[in-house]
């Protein structure tokens, strides 16, 4: 294989560089939040993780529909990549949420609407990945995991509304909305950074899957020599 830079590789490098710049601005240039102080700076990775993981699952839903519609393995591979990256980002965002909740609310976990919805969402899609692992036939695996991804994705808004109403019985912990313009810039930079890295990882993952699948693609055996008396009756 030649070491030529692919478009997604360039995107990945750009993402990492952007992430360094954005995090630098977020950590050292942007002002500290008035009430929460430096803890709030986790927002610069937390919100991008949340947004991009949601975007990954949305993309996975689109890929799943395309996969069922066309039954082309390409969409199945894209869907798997998107779900995997989405689940990883989702796990990161839950950990960041806990790190943030501890000093802010005094507890590791709070049944916050978005946090709870994210947790259910991660369980849903991690379940799809576990399900995939048990299906041997590639065509069946593609169809069944697309079915699971679709019904899981449709569930997300329902879970969100449920948790919101469920929570509304208790008092709602407000998320701070005082945003200094100086905070917006690193947030934007990091969002694009995470987006680029996510796309790069999804493409890498799909490519890896395609390579391992190519081992399964065996050409049709060559035709046997017709034996005597093989004319049509």
């Amino acid at each position, binding site marked *: 294989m030649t070491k030529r830079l692919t478009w997604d590789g360039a995107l990945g490098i750009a993402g990492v560089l952007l992430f360094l710049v954005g995090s630098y601005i977020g950590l050292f240039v942007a002002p500290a939040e008035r009430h929460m102080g430096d803890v709030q700076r986790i927002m610069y990775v937390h919100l991008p993780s949340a947004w991009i993981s949601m975007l990954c699952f949305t993309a996975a839903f689109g890929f799943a529909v395309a996969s069922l519609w066309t039954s082309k393995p390409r969409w199945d591979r894209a869907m798997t990549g998107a779900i995997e990256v989405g689940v990883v980002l989702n796990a990161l965002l839950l950990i960041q949420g806990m790190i943030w909740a501890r000093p802010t609310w005094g507890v590791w976990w709070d049944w916050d609407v978005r946090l709870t919805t994210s947790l259910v969402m991660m369980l*849903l899609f991690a379940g799809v990945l576990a*399900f995939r692992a048990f299906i041997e036939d590639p065509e069946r695996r593609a169809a069944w995991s697309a079915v699971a991804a679709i*019904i899981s994705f449709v569930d997300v808004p329902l*879970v969100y509304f449920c948790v919101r109403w469920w929570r509304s019985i208790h008092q709602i912990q407000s998320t701070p909305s005082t945003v200094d313009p100086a905070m917006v810039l690193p947030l934007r930079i990091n969002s694009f950074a995470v987006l680029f890295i996510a796309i790069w990882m999804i493409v890498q993952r799909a490519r890896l899957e395609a390579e391992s699948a190519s081992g399964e693609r065996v050409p049709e055996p060559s035709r046997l020599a017709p034996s005597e008396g093989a004319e049509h009756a």
Partner: protein
Amino acid sequence: MRALGQIATLVRKDLLVEWRGRARLFSVLLFGAVTLLLFSFAVGPDSLALRAAAAGFLVLALLLSSTMGLSESFRVEQEQRALEGLLLLPVEPVALFYGKALANTVFLLLLAPILIPVALVLYAVELEAARILGLLGLWALAAAGLSAPGTLYAAMTSRLQSQDVLLPLLLFPLVVPVLMASVKSADLILTGDPMAQMRSWLVLLIGFDVIYWSLCGVLFPYAVQEAQ
């Protein structure tokens, strides 16, 4: 319509098979009752705390019993590949889905006359007839909500190894809205509804039922299709 007749035939067939093997129905009933009992051990003999958690425990007992019923309902179809035999007949897979999902809903409904009284007695809840009827209606909505995605998933997992782990793994997070909505509504029925919150929960539960009864019907053909 032809499809409706086929669905009716399939439901009747499933219920007949179910009734002939009623030992299973009874064991699932017993299982549900045992879980109700165990929940009360987890809370302790404090009748106030038990009453507060009664709605949640009742719905959890339904959820846990449902997975046993669902995976079993497709074991019958896989034993001698009867499902393939049905697919070979001029029957739309959609009809197979609605037949199975309806039969599974009826199966879960049959648990209500035992599990609801057991819960009321164990958790010391006094209830007048009208509210018991309300609880039954809620049970039907929850059973329908579990059956639609449960039937779709069971159709797939029943052909895999580790189906006993996979079905709950996939189904439980999916039915979180059903769980929340029915626990909340059941709680409002049991302890009263001064703020008239019932409506929004019921809308959510019915919404879930409508969405998944349609969506799973559309997706079921892909779950049983011949591509393999």
